[in-house]
């Protein structure tokens, strides 16, 4: 392993601009003649717009325009879409309600836009926005997903009965029922997977510029996938033809899924910019983000596990209500279906599984993928069932898991996924050692002497990422393919630029991708540049989410490098006057096999472009190759997290005294970056388990509407983490990478709740397990639901 090759903890190239404050995030971009947008938003969760009067607003100083939903409809701008078709059990397609970028008839969640003010300055736009008079007829709102389908519940969208988007299922209902009937032990749990607000620290922003002379539009946007944004906005929203739209996602300050989706604001900025013939910039205020960023999770589940007398799992079944909010966001339908139900086997050999999911509308913000997207929900169900079963049956939690781990691969689960490689015993064993589980009983006794309850919780998770084989997801309803692209450009001077369809918003691709190229071509790490995020530079890509940039993005680079190497060998053959088949390439040098005749990388690169050693008929000049890589399978990172907590009996406060994570990510390109991803994922998982929860009151007001009321994890809420790795390479991509971006967030919540319930001796505890919730549970009371 070289100092800058695969497996090296190379320090990041991108850091210089971030530590010196010279990054370029969307709000940092300024265009000449720029105007600022301020949205007028509904204060009601559900209402008819009776009238809208912008006359006073239009007269305010600095106002360039005030635009409404009616204006948008008149200009025939199309609606936002969900791009993944899900069918119900009875074959009917999901019920996608119209989602215009600015509401004109009814508003369906607090924060739903009803108008936009374009002003010379932000202050002027905001002042004018306050003068827009909207007369609402407030309608009864639906807020609780568990009550959205009840008889008598208000129907939010026309023609969508019982607010039901789809009723989906997966697995074998009959076989599962039979297994439950024959079971020695059945564990039952009612689980709420609490709703979360992603809250990347950079708020969403869009800056749109219409070029009058060329009829061309440019959008700077906080996007994880600029090409997908370009495609949706041009082809589906109908803003402008695809070739007339450039989307640039510059430095983006975190995404976690929330910046995948195509939102109303970028659509409105583009449309407004063409109307007013000037650039239009919008940046969310944080409280605006709370109301309009896609939220995550929000499942209500009844789950059951059937076991025999020895603790062997016979079957699992789950019935889930998934809240998708007021409108279907871009990938929303897939999260509680094919990203959830398909992981209900966990690491276990479960013969029968049946899962039913009803997705419902409520008058809340749209819900879509957030770090883990369906897999944290699945893991929480499985790992709580397993841990509780162990307790109820008097079997050690680690032992119950061992009795059920899948041992041979490939393993076909009953829920579509075929796990290709893994060793769950290895990660459990290593985690037990690192966590010193043997010494836990002693630590627990010590803690009890000081009025603290210690608990231990396991989470042996598996997930499916490296999203995804296009044909497979297409057959499941995806409207797009999930391949990735790479164009490797060798310059005449031998430096290399890689244009990747992946996007880095914290993942360090400028470093890790360069490590791969540098090692493969034997050229200095400094001579490799990674280009991403601009649809004018990278022809097409599917973006970064679903832990796919290693498994899919880097595989595309490998394939392109294969082509580059093949062509470079041809050039070298002409230079060295040898047969192409006799050329070997190693460590940046081309050699004629069995001789000492060689050519250095730099010379070969130059010759490819000077083209003096061969004719055009023999070989095209240039050295630049593209690959579109379509994965052959998902990848299956898996591991064991062990959480040790101390609960204060008097206050219910939980301290995490130890966190152990042993993960199998296959091949690791940069262990420093991988550990960072694990840390960040665990932090978000702990946030979900202990601190976070988006709460709407009965009238649909977002009570947790700012960082004052929504508890973001801070440094003092978290421990340092003990992170280890095991490795079984993924057999389904050239580098053997599984991916690591979401694993921490997937594993962590179950580990925390398993630990606290172990400490306090009751399972009656919901997330977030705040001090109040834990204290109440300790008193034997049911945890009070947030108002």
């Amino acid at each position, binding site marked *: 392993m070289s100092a800058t090759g695969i497996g090296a903890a190379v*320090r*990041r190239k*991108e*850091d*210089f*601009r*971030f*530590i*010196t*404050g*010279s*990054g*370029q*995030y969307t*709000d*940092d971009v*300024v265009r000449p003649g720029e105007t600022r947008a301020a949205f007028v938003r509904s204060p009601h969760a559900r209402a008819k717009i009776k009238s809208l009067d912008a006359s006073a607003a239009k007269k305010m100083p600095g106002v360039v325009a005030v635009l409404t939903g009616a204006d948008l409809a008149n200009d025939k701008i199309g609606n936002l879409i969900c791009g993944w078709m899900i069918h119900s059990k009875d074959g009917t397609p999901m019920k996608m309600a119209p989602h215009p970028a600015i509401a004109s008839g009814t508003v369906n969640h607090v924060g739903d836009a009803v108008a936009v003010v374009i002003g010379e300055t932000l*202050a002027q736009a905001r002042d004018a926005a306050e003068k827009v008079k909207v007369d609402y007829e407030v309608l009864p709102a639906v807020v609780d997903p568990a009550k959205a389908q009840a008889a008598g519940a208000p129907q939010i969208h026309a023609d969508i009965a019982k607010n039901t988007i789809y009723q989906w299922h997966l697995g074998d209902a009959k076989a599962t029922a039979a297994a439950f009937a024959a079971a020695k032990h059945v564990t039952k749990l009612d689980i709420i997977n609490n709703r979360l607000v*992603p*809250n*990347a*620290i*950079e*708020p969403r922003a869009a800056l749109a510029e219409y070029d009058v002379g060329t009829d061309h539009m440019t959008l700077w946007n906080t996007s994880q996938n600029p090409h997908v944004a370009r495609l949706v906005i041009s082809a589906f929203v109908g803003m402008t033809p695809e070739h007339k739209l450039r989307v640039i996602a510059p*430095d*983006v*300050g*975190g995404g*976690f899924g929330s910046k995948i989706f195509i939102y109303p604001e970028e659509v409105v900025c583009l449309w407004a910019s063409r109307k007013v013939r000037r650039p239009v910039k919008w*940046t969310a*205020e*944080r*409280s605006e983000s709370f109301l309009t960023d896609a939220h995550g999770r929000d499942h209500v589940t009844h789950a059951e596990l059937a076991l025999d007398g020895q603790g062997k799992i016979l079957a699992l079944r789950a019935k889930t209500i998934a809240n998708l909010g007021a409108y279907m966001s871009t990938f929303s339908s897939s999260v509680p279906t094919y990203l959830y139900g398909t992981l209900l086997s966990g690491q276990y050999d479960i013969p029968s599984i049946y899962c039913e999911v009803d997705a419902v509308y409520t008058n809340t913000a749209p819900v879509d993928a957030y770090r883990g997207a369906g897999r944290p929900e699945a893991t929480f169900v499985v790992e709580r069932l397993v841990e509780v079963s162990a307790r109820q049956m008097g079997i050690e939690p680690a032992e119950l898991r061992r009795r059920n781990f899948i041992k041979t691969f490939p393993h076909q689960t009953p829920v579509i996924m075929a796990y290709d490689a893994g060793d769950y015993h290895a990660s459990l064993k290593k985690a037990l050692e690192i966590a010193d589980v043997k010494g836990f009983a002693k630590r627990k006794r010590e803690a009890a002497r000081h009025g603290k309850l210690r608990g231990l919780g396991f989470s042996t998770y598996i997930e499916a990422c490296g999203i995804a084989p296009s044909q497979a997801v297409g057959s499941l309803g995806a409207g797009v393919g999930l391949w990735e692209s790479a164009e490797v450009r060798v310059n005449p001077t031998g430096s290399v630029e890689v244009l990747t369809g992946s996007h880095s*918003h*914290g*993942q*360090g691709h400028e470093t890790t991708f360069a490590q791969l190229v540098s090692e493969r071509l034997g050229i200095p790490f400094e001579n490799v540049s990674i280009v991403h995020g601009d649809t004018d530079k990278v022809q097409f890509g599917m973006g970064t989410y679903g832990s796919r940039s290693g498994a899919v993005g880097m595989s595309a680079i490998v394939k392109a490098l294969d082509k580059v190497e093949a062509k470079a060998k041809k050039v070298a053959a002409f230079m060295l006057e040898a047969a192409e088949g006799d050329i070997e390439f190693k460590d940046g040098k081309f050699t004629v096999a069995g001789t000492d005749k060689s050519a250095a990388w730099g010379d070969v690169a130059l010759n490819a472009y000077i083209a003096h050693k061969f004719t055009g008929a023999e070989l095209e000049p240039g050295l630049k190759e593209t690959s579109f890589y379509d994965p052959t399978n998902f990848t299956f990172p898996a591991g064991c997290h062990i959480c040790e907590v101390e609960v204060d009996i008097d206050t219910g406060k939980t301290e995490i005294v130890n966190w152990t994570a042993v993960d199998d990510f296959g091949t690791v390109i940069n262990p*420093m*970056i991988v*550990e*960072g991803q694990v*840390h*960040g*994922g*665990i*932090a*978000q998982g702990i946030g979900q388990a202990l601190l976070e929860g988006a709460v709407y009151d009965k009238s649909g007001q977002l009570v947790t509407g*700012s*960082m*004052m009321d929504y508890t*973001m*994890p*801070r*440094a*003092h809420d*978290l421990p*340092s*983490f003990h992170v280890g790795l095991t490795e079984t390479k993924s057999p389904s991509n050239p580098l053997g990478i599984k991916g690591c971006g979401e694993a*921490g967030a997937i594993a962590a919540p179950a580990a925390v709740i398993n630990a606290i319930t172990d400490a306090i001796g009751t399972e009656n505890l919901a997330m977030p397990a705040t001090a109040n919730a834990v204290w109440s549970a300790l008193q034997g009371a049911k945890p009070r639901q947030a108002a």
Partner: protein
Amino acid sequence: MPAVSMTVNGKAVTGDVEARTLLVQFLRENLRLTGTHVGCDTSQCGACVVHVDGIASKSCTLLALQCEGAKITTIEGLAEPGGALHPMQEAFRENHGLQCGYCTPGMIMAALDIVRRRGNDLDEHTIREQLDGNICRCTGYHNIVKAIAAGAKAMAKGGTRQAAE
């Protein structure tokens, strides 16, 4: 519109601002110093931390006019004029104390203030407690804590000047 004058990163500056203009807006929009970031609207996240007369302050919670005559240091003012990075900046890079970089300028400026108040030998508990006003969503803080401890130590060794007043 009233005028305001202050010194930013050693340079005297002047601008016309509305009374309600925040310091962070003045820095970002009038002075085009976009290294200081806005991450929230309730003074929680700390992405906007700068030094005002040597003390860490949230520039989203100060009016520009309140800073009349003040000496401001932003992230852009930390590196040496010749380009050498401040040891705290180096420590963040060396210890992978950042991922997306958005909270980073505020983190670094806050870290320097921790050193000012608590010295160069910082333990994990102290750093975690003192970061109450800085939120990171990417790193889980593990490496930020390491970076700050390392940066604090390096500042003692190098006999480094404090951030320019």
